[in-house]
């Protein structure tokens, strides 16, 4: 699969839709494009829509997980949306855990989740700014 990867912006979030059949070079190229955009736009949220993927193997899963970790370092949370049932079952069966990833059913729920994560982060930052230590 070649050609430009369409990266969109929705309400301050970066959204990208992965579709069709992706070879490894394309996956890595997409990862680079997203990281560039997240860095450039200083966004606080990234949405990766994989509802168009009929298969996610260990490499693709690895890159997605890597992306989520890296965007977090840049100050943005990442939510994966639209993992298909057959793909979910296959990933679990393979033992690819992806436990640290935020996931949502669709873009709408994903954006809501990003909002909550932002608010949660804001609350933590606000508390950290106070001098008295917080005991949870």
């Amino acid at each position, binding site marked *: *699969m070649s050609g430009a990867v369409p990266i969109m912006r929705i309400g301050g979030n970066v959204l990208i839709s992965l579709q069709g*059949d992706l*070879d*490894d*070079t394309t996956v890595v190229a997409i990862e680079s494009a997203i990281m560039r955009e997240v860095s450039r736009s200083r966004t606080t949220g990234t949405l990766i829509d994989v509802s168009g993927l*009929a*298969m*996610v*193997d*260990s*490499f693709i899963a*690895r890159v997605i997980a890597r992306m989520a970790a890296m965007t977090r370092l840049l100050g943005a949370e990442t939510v994966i949306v639209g993992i298909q*049932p*057959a*793909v979910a*079952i*296959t990933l679990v*069966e*393979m*033992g*690819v855990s992806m436990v640290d990833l935020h996931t949502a059913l669709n873009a709408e729920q994903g954006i809501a989740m990003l909002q909550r994560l932002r608010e949660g982060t804001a609350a933590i930052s606000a508390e950290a700014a106070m001098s008295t230590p917080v005991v949870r």
Partner: protein
Amino acid sequence: MIATIELAIPAVVGIATEPDLLRVRTVLRQHAVAAGFGIVDQTKLVTAGSELARNILRYASGSHADLSVEAVQNGDRTGLRAVFADDGPGIADVDAALGDGFSTGGTLGLGLPGARRLVDDFDIVTAPGAGTRVTITKWKR
């Protein structure tokens, strides 16, 4: 007069370049659909095949390698058998490669344990300098 050309699903796919990885997935998907596999089993087979094809591209590049697929039968069970064969360097320690946690090449290991969990029968014949031959079988449920 219109002539209809029936294209059979390829039974053999050479594995040498990245586009071949996509071809392997497509061919396996086509075979799985033709064999009447449900979507979950199709996906498992294609994913397992993707892992094995990637292994060949990563660790046996330059060697002669291919995937061959055939329909199989055992009593009243029908299924698909896919053989990934290459004449690359071979795997020195198969047991380690098959055990979870074996990591090499910067990916999640060789993907063998994962692929093995997705299929019903898994067979690997390999030795240093003797190439590798992985046979996976998935039966129709």
